[in-house]
């Protein structure tokens, strides 16, 4: 079992005929993900890799093929529109990989999703990989391994780094989830942590945070009160200068809030070990898990 996905997950890929959308759809298919349809307006009737039907709209993909989950690879100017479309068509899980989506677009899309009970992951995220079940996004499949550890991260490639080390140490994963580092995202740290806490197969989990915002502090407070599973953390950006945006729209330290040091204090105060280096995460986890 995993969080947010299961055997009934049927995927439609929005932007399947684009360069990145096509490449990663192939990867997802190769991993066994049930991609039942693709969508590119104007390309309806074509087939992706001679097997996945392409439709002009998500509505058709849902009606014809029963898609219930969308993975979005469309350019930033169309990303919010693609999210609305997927939600309106009835998808209950949407993973938006697109980087560079205007924040005001995301602010507006959020209540639309809430009204329809739709879970969004992203935007500007690597998505989700539940080893042995499905890959929704761009996490490299070669590094994952089935097992009892959950992983949630605001980062993309740093997630891969940690998953790689977990797998190398024999610690397989229930779900690896990159939620993205933009200011406004669908599924938050807190949402993921609650889901891991409720998931019977997840025995322990790892939180990869970064500078900016206070999602880590909130998560720490919640974990302290509610979570009995072992948790370890890592925070990127200890050396980031204040006031500068570190790639992610979210990764910016402003006016003494959102620093790595503050987050570390909050996490440790909640009893969550914070690894100094990415390579320390696995040893940290092994240490507290044995207790």
């Amino acid at each position, binding site marked *: 079992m995993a969080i947010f996905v299961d055997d009934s997950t049927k995927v439609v890929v929005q932007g399947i005929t684009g360069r*990145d959308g096509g*490449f*990663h759809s192939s*990867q997802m298919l190769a991993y066994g993900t049930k991609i039942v349809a693709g969508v590119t307006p104007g390309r309806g009737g074509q087939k992706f890799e001679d097997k996945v039907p392409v439709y002009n709209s998500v509505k058709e993909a849902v009606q014809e093929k029963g898609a219930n989950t969308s993975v979005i690879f469309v350019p*930033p*100017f169309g990303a919010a529109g693609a999210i609305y479309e997927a939600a309106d068509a009835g998808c209950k899980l949407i993973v938006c*990989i697109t980087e*560079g989506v*205007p*924040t*005001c*677009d995301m*602010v*507006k899309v*959020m*209540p639309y999703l809430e009204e329809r009970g739709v879970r969004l992951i992203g935007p500007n995220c*690597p998505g989700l990989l539940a080893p042995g079940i499905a890959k929704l996004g*761009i*996490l*490299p499949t*070669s*590094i994952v391994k089935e097992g009892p550890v959950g992983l949630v*991260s605001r*980062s*993309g*490639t*740093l*997630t*891969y*780094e940690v998953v*790689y080390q977990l797998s190398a140490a024999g610690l397989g994963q229930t779900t690896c989830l990159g939620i993205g*580092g933009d*200011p*406004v995202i669908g599924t938050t740290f807190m949402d993921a942590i609650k889901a891991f806490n409720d998931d019977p197969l997840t025995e322990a989990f790892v939180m990869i945070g*970064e*500078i900016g*915002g*206070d999602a880590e502090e*909130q998560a720490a407070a919640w974990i302290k009160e509610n979570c009995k599973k072992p948790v370890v953390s*890592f925070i*990127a*950006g*200890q*050396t*980031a*200068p204040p006031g*500068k*945006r*570190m*790639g*992610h*729209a979210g*990764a910016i330290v402003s*006016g*003494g809030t959102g620093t*790595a040091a503050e987050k570390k204090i909050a996490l440790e105060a909640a009893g969550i070990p914070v690894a*100094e*280096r*990415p*390579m320390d995460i696995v040893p940290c986890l092994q240490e507290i898990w044995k207790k």
Partner: protein
Amino acid sequence: MNIHEYQAKEIFTGFGLPVPGGKVATTTEDSVALANEFGYPVMVKCQVLTGGRGKAGGIKFCETEADVRKNAEAILGMDIKGHTVKTVLITPAVDIESEYYVGMLIDRNTKRILLMASAEGGVEIEQVAKDTPELIFKQPIDPRFGLLDHEAMDMGMRLCPTDIKKARQLASAMQKLYQAFVHSDASLAEINPFIFTPEGRGHAIDAKVNLDDNAIFRHSDYEPMRDLDAEDPSERAAREANLSFVKLSGNVGCLVNGAGLAMATMDLVKYYGGQPANFLDIGGSSNPEKVVNALKIILADEEVKVILFNIFGGITRCDDVAKGIIAATEIMDIKVPIVVRLTGTNEEEGRALLSKTDLVPATTMDEAVKKAIELG
């Protein structure tokens, strides 16, 4: 993208906010001419993209032409926190009876635009937030309905409980600020202070707007607002090449894909006693040209003694990165050692391509960082 006060005021004026007239000058003579045009007293305000302009002596009240001449001359060319003043805003000075703070930003927790306002205007709002957070009133705005009349009025009356006319002006200013925020795709918009004259007229006498970089593509009219002088040349080159880059002062040039991994790489360089020369995220795209551009930007810094690639391929494919590195080394005459760590999607293909070169390979992040520091 941060813009100057005078540019923020232009946006505000377009949405009907009450902004005192004003024009910019780049010379003392022009400053004096503008002041004479407006009549005295005027304010001479340095236009630099940093806070604390007043404390640094960059904002002066001038009652006479001689005042303007003296102050404009002093301010133009002044260095404020590393920014050279090239432009001043000349604006009629207004009598101030009371000052308020009105601002909006994106609130991650509510996922909404958050209106914040305080009767403690004219001072550093961060300080108020820290010392007396109860003096800052907040109203998250539902994007489906906008800032409603009663929500704005409620805020206005909290700021001015005893003067309905002022409360109404504040409420109206908040609603206009919201329009300005969403239509300009801002990430921050502040009026600090919003003042009332002794006659009870409201004015936005300072303005700060940060625009969402992700939305600039649909505001071609705002692109000319970008102050190219205020950017580090390497940061500008990076932006034009669509790379996320921040210059630092070390010797290890870092090229990493992904902001999180890039920060973690910087952290690790420092952990092992080295100094990162930069933050650079080559992004999620797998365009080989980006690597060439990135190398050019980093190598333009003569302090850089070693290049460290840390690539974990997800959406970026390792073979593309490898091709980019090879293309770059063919075009450029790179004198510093290059440590390359490639893992993830298509890593075998990538490593195979690089094996024919004299780049320094590394398997893990730790190994790569240690080798780079050693070679740097």
